[in-house]
């Protein structure tokens, strides 16, 4: 009798094992059944999440038989998770991926090429800002469509400018004006700084400087991305400009954690901040204004700025699901949806036609004061960062260079030369 009970226990335990095993493999099998069902990985939270869910409900209503499943994934981790899903043979049909990953994303074999899709006249590809198109294109291959666009401009504290009896920054201002203003806005006794800079040495440190490099007429790499080009007069000008404020004038608050600067600005302790539209809602305590980036006189680069667009990327799960995902993507990025989503969320429009629609910018400003400057500033985005797979390593080298100069551990020229040598090594494949 005892053996029977034993057998029952064995069967039970084995059954549990099988169930556990099946549960582990279960997630992939459900999606293959219905060809009209697509899976999207996105990182929207708060208002964005609500608006996006509402839009999807609308899409499902107007496209009977199509089921759009969304899964929240923290955008910082999406590529890692996509890598795992691709290795497991069950990638999402559509994923929101940072633009800086594009050259590496292009290496994934199941990424669908969208070059022909965006050529369709109904898409009006050139309606997207050039910075977005550049980031969605790796070599000659389009691997994604714009999901988000932003740019850097100068947000300034109007009250501090008034107290210092300084005229507010105008659209024609220069970096020497910025430096002079920063100096005048600095009051050490009350710990007030003219400006701030993030110094963890990450890409956030780097792209702020790259905007200056471009404005000074410089380039990050040469035209065929084989050698460093930032070790130029323009590179030196850009680095010297920051050094003057950080080292000579002490007018720059250095934030090594990349988390304090916004609070410090919101506390009225910083006069000017180079940042993007995402920070505006974090400044409720400050009467702020927004101005385009300053220029370097004597160059033709004007008030150039930098943009960090993100992409929607389609993955291959069979022809019918690719078709369903592409159809959804074309709908999502069409002018009507772009206008709706940005008006509801305060994000910048990904299409030029949206930005130029009558009444649009004033409607945006009503929700978020002066955001329209960021919208017009999209026109000052003339180029994208180099689309090379080794950009993350290059960025780390440039980040170290900038921090070394701002902490006064290295002179600009020596820092530039050392960084360029390292970047050349990386590009030669021996870094």
């Amino acid at each position: 009798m005892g053996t029977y009970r034993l057998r029952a226990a064995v069967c039970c335990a084995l059954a549990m094992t099988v169930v556990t095993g099946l549960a582990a493999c279960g997630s992939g099998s459900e999606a293959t059944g219905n060809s009209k069902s697509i899976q999207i990985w996105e990182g929207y939270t708060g208002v964005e999440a609500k608006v996006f869910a509402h839009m999807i409900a609308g899409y499902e209503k107007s496209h009977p038989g199509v089921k759009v499943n969304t899964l929240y994934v923290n955008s910082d981790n999406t590529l890692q998770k996509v890598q795992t899903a691709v290795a497991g043979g069950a990638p999402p049909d559509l994923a929101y991926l940072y633009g800086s990953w594009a050259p590496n994303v292009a290496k994934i074999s199941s990424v669908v090429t969208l070059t022909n899709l965006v050529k369709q006249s109904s898409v009006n590809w050139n309606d997207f800002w050039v910075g977005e198109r550049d980031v969605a294109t790796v070599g000659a291959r389009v691997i994604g469509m714009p999901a988000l666009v932003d740019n850097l401009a100068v947000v300034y504290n109007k009250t501090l400018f008034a107290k210092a009896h300084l005229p507010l920054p105008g659209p024609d201002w220069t970096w020497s004006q910025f430096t002079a203003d920063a100096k005048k806005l600095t009051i050490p006794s009350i710990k007030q700084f003219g400006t701030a800079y993030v110094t963890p040495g990450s890409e956030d440190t780097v792209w702020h400087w790259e905007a200056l490099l471009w404005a000074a007429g410089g380039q990050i790499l040469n035209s065929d991305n084989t050698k460093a080009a930032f070790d130029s007069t323009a590179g030196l000008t850009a680095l010297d400009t920051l050094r003057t404020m950080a080292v000579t004038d002490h007018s720059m608050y250095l934030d090594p954690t990349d988390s304090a600067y916004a609070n410090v600005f919101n506390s009225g302790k910083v006069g000017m901040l180079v940042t993007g539209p995402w920070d505006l809602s974090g400044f409720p305590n400050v009467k702020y204004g927004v101005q385009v980036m300053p220029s370097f006189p004597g160059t033709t680069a004007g008030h150039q700025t930098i943009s960090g667009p993100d992409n929607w990327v389609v993955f291959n799960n069979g022809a019918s699901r690719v078709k369903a995902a592409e159809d959804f993507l074309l709908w999502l990025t069409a002018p009507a949806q772009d206008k709706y989503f940005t008006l509801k969320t305060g994000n910048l429009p990904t299409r030029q036609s949206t930005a130029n629609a009558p009444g649009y910018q004033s409607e945006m400003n009503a929700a978020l004061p002066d955001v329209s400057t960021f919208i017009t500033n999209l026109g000052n985005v003339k180029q994208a960062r180099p689309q090379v797979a080794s950009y993350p390593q290059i960025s780390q080298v440039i980040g170290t260079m900038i921090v070394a100069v701002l902490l006064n551990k290295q002179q600009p020229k020596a820092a530039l030369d050392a960084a360029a040598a390292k970047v050349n090594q990386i590009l030669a494949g021996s870094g």
Partner: protein
Amino acid sequence: MSLSASIALGRRKTGERPGSRRLRRAETLTGWAFVTPATVVIGLFGAAPIIWSLIMSFQQSDQLSSSTPFVGLHNYRQMVHDPAVTSAIWHTLIYTALFVPGTMVLGLFLAVAMNRKLRFMWVYRTAAYATMAISTISEALVFIWLFDPSYGIVNYVFSLLHIPQQQFLNSPSEALYVVVVMTIWGWSGFAVVIYLAALQGIPQDLTEAAAIDGAGRWTSFWRITMPLLSPASLFLAVWLTINALQLFDEVYLSTQGGPLGATTVLVYYLYQQAFENFNFGYASAIAYLLFIVILVVTAIQFRVGRRFTYYRS
């Protein structure tokens, strides 16, 4: 049933009953049936990744493209010539050398202070352990502000005491020590709980006997309490060292390895290589280096520790 079966088996070593072999086999099977689910889970999520990363450490893999050429010992050779690995090892060792004794001393001090009958003692004990319960992200945010060079309380207190203002997280020579202070604070609660439990296990008659023999409080602490705490100390030393060598969260949340790589410890460097630079092969090799370092350090600790550890039983 199994109890009576094993008793029966134990009694009859020779001349087994005809049914007993079947019974024993059935029992083995039951045993396996019970451990199989856990074994499968551990194998799937523990052993498989360990073996897979070992294989990956001999490959050039970005986990993006499907090509993963076998490169032999290239990743390990590259590690030897990578100055960033050398400095990451240094940062990790300096950190460990400060963090482990620091946490143990602070934990012991607090535990001894709390090992008495006082009103509201539970409040102090809860407060001490709370450092363990607080999430690392809140801990990091608080310390970022405490040690902010311009607006932080620490520099404010320094100015009151006429100590020169420090750059803390902005200074390559100070940032690692700020991380040490931050993590000692975070882990001290854990050490307190372990030491407090061990202190309460020390029989009063021993300390009383020592007092009768004329031992002062200090002598009795060194001669009675400390030796009796040695198993707890060994456990803490091993546990904290393993954790210290794997430091990541606090660095990721506060300094991101900076300034100028001053807080780039081994695991943070590994993370950068894998998830920022997509060098999964190289990162796996670094992970194995770390594994060997931890293995060696732990083995030494057990060897040395056994000499100084006193088990009452």
